[in-house]
């Protein structure tokens, strides 16, 4: 028998706020975290705006010792800050650095899409090319190994269950949450810290800029630059940060009297195989629809029961296709389509962290009963006009919201869909 799985802790560092209270306030008030980045102008990027968490040095000085900070690039800082927050939010204390205590029942699946590119670009490549590998010291490997973000967290918190990092481009964070759910369902762990982290670096973003998938038309209007579902959407805005959830067996949560934010009903992960219209960079629509339908089956619900969707919705040409796929997969029409919003309109697209950050938004929405406004789509895309009643542009109180779908789609034609349900004891 599979165990029921719930969310008992949230940790977030986003471009528009650190901590769940600040993040919730920013979502509700439509506060954008997109800013002009002078470095991107100097580097002649087409897109010169991005979503980058603020005040990180100050947060780090409060959270970490000098020794802990020796080997922390931006993605590891974001992952560590949000993992500590989720851990404490779930009711646990951070162990002393020299404690011998290991929590064998808690693990971590924290993914990243691109990884430690800042360390690679600023240290490994220049020092190696100069014949000075010795000068890299001992701190390079742990910052660029793909599992760097989860490895650091296990050391900070003394985690003794599975600790790993997944990577599947822009669906990384959502996949991590589902992989953690499976582990708890099968009784292999009581608790897992799960989500995604992505650093802030021109080296992470330059390849996307070269592909011309970033919006280069709004450098003088940062807060208007991320425009999911808009007729004037012209590419995504790069983002950074981390969103990490404490995922726990219902048995464990009830036993220790933990606050339960939401139940994870189920989900699905698949790949479109780069066929039937899919490619490295475009989704196979059949793959997307199967992923959503498999998630419904796994959760034991019908498409008609989904109250709200937090879309992948990046602000590229794919947004209308995505909504069409949701409609087909859920068996819904333009008239009875669920409420839908795009968190990326406020924070940009943080790649491997997106599914984690947006899942935090979803869990807050079902816990508190609201759907945050999706900004910058006042000029809805023509194909989305029939859905205008469902597209939430200004935050709505929704006490009736019970089931929230979250999906992420990524390069490689990969898909992940998770279903959150309001917890009712």
């Amino acid at each position, binding site marked *: 028998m599979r165990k029921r799985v719930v969310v008992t802790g949230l940790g977030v560092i986003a471009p528009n706020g650190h901590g769940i209270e600040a993040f919730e306030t920013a979502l509700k008030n439509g506060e954008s975290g997109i800013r002009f980045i002078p470095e991107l102008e100097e580097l002649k990027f087409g897109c010169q705006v991005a979503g980058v968490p603020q005040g990180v040095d100050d947060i780090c000085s409060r959270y970490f*010792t*000098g*020794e802990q900070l*020796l080997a922390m690039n931006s993605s590891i800082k974001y992952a560590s800050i949000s993992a500590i927050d989720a851990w404490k939010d779930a009711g646990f204390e951070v162990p002393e*650095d*020299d404690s011998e205590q290991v929590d064998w029942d808690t693990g971590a699946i924290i993914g990243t899409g691109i990884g430690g590119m800042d360390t690679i670009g600023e240290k490994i490549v220049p020092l190696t090319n100069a014949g000075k590998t*010795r*000068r890299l*010291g*001992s*701190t390079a490997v742990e910052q660029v190994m793909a599992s760097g973000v989860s490895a650091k967290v296990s050391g900070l918190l003394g985690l003794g269950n599975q600790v790993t990092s997944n990577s599947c481009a822009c669906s990384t964070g959502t996949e991590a949450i589902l992989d953690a759910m499976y582990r708890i369902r099968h009784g292999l762990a009581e608790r897992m810290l799960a989500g995604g982290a992505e650093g802030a670096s021109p080296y992470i973003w330059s390849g996307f800029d070269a592909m011309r998938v970033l919006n280069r038309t709004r450098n003088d209007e940062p807060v208007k630059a991320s425009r999911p579902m808009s007729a004037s959407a012209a590419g995504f805005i790069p983002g950074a940060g981390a969103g990490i959830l404490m995922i726990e067996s219902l048995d464990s949560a009830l036993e220790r009297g933990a606050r339960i934010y939401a139940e994870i009903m189920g989900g699905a992960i698949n790949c479109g195989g780069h066929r039937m219209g899919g490619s490295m960079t475009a989704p196979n629509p059949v793959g997307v629809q199967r992923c959503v339908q498999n998630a419904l089956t796994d959760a034991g619900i019908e498409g008609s029961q989904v109250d709200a969707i937090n879309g992948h919705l990046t602000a590229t040409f794919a947004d209308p296709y995505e909504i069409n796929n949701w409609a087909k997969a859920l068996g819904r029409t333009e008239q009875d389509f669920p409420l839908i919003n795009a968190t990326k309109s406020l924070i940009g697209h943080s790649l491997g962290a997106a599914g984690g950050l947006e899942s935090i938004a979803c869990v807050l929405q079902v816990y508190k009963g609201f759907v945050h406004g999706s900004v910058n789509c006042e000029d809805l895309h023509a194909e989305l006009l029939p859905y205008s009643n469902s597209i939430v542009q200004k935050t709505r109180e929704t006490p009736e919201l019970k089931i929230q779908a979250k999906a992420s789609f990524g390069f490689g034609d990969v898909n992940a869909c998770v279903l959150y349900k309001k917890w009712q004891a």
Partner: protein
Amino acid sequence: MTKDEVFKKIVDILGKYSKTEIKMENISMETSILDDLKINSARLVDIVLDFEDVFDIEVDDDDADSVATVGDGVNLIMAKI
């Protein structure tokens, strides 16, 4: 530079890498860098790089491998400056 000055600079360097707060009065020439100061063994290569930068010396791999106590570091540096 006197031996005492070298000793103090080495303790400053080690402070960056220790998981515990280092108090000068508790450190002697016999203090073990890894065991007593709770420094991760991987960080020894960083400590040696700091020795090179702070004292403007070069430390080869064999010399680096010989550093186990604070005194080993002091003696190595005194021999090179």
